[in-house]
């Protein structure tokens, strides 16, 4: 129901920030987050950052995906966790 894209914070000034992803830069608002710093990835919806992306969690999800990818090649079974 809601389009949102992860983008990296480049600059913050008060509740205004500039974010970037793959060469596209966008002015957004950060009212919905307590702390935002340059370098953070945030999820952008309707011109607002609605959450910080937790990169450790992203890595864990990717690690699980890699196991599924390897499984296709070896024909083994992986359980869904959580």
């Amino acid at each position: 129901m809601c389009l949102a894209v992860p983008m990296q914070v480049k600059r913050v000034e008060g509740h205004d920030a500039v974010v970037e992803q793959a060469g596209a830069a966008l002015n957004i608002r950060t009212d919905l987050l307590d702390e935002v710093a340059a370098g953070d990835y945030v999820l952008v919806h309707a011109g607002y950052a609605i959450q910080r992306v937790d990169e450790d969690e992203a890595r864990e999800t990717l690690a699980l995906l890699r196991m599924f990818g390897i499984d296709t090649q070896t024909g083994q079974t992986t359980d869904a966790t959580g």
Partner: protein
Amino acid sequence: MSVVLLAHGGGGRLMADLIREVFLPRLESPELARADDSALFTPPPGRLAFTTDAFVVDPILFPGGDIGRLAVCGTVNDLAAGGAVPLYLSAAFVIEEGLPLEVLSTIVDSLAATAREAGVRVVAGDTKVVPHGKADQLFITTAGVGCVPEGVSVSGHHARPGDVVLCSGALGDHGMAIMVARENLGFVGHLESDVAPLNDLTAALHSLGPDLHVLRDPTRGGAAAALNEIAAQSGVAIQLHEEAVPIHAPVRVACELLGTDPLTVANEGKMLAVVAPEAADAALAAWRDHPLGREAAVIGEVLEGPAGRVQVRTAFGTTRILDRPLGEQLPRIC
């Protein structure tokens, strides 16, 4: 700041001044300078191509171009997509009173420079001024004449099963640049229109002769509309390979944010070609050698049927139907 007045369109001295000071020195056209009611010229041998297009883009100055450059490219590219070598253009200006003369001059400069770039001459013109609110700053209508070289025969009806679909470069640049500029969406830089005359690029395929089947410039409605037209005209199906379609990264991001499919976004400097399979390598090489075709790619193929269907094959081996878009693209949040 001087602005265009209703009187500039009144047929009197002000209008003569406008034409003498703004249009004639920039367009450098002997036919215009003669100031007769029609341009006279001897057509070259062979078939003639003739087309017209009206330009009402908002904003009239946009990143990567302006309405003047667009007015030349739109008509030149339609002629080029007909397999023609464009020769002459006409340009009719409908100006809303109050348009700064400086803006008009910039746009006429750009129109003239683009005509020179495309190797065409503006041989006929007209200017009208309408009251404030009766037009949106500036509308331009151009018409163009070109000649089709011997041995070239392209049409949307000529796609055959087994043919290869090529694209001359990255899709979606123009439409996203305009949407972002018009709606003031807070994007910063990096999104520029691709507006460019493509007649030299299409001429690079003329040596393919009968192996060159279709040329089409994917303007409004994007590649989705252009390919659906070709599939319907030729009674074939077309399959695209999603991963093979070149799209610039910032355009992809903007499309994801605004909920737009880049395949439905307008282009003004890209050409699609459908060629016989044995000519695909030569066509791709010819385009990649051209400055406007460096990112050219083979993006799909023509299938037997179902007639009129365009489908996209994803990286995951699945397919989806690619329909033509409903209308104007709007930014969405969901």
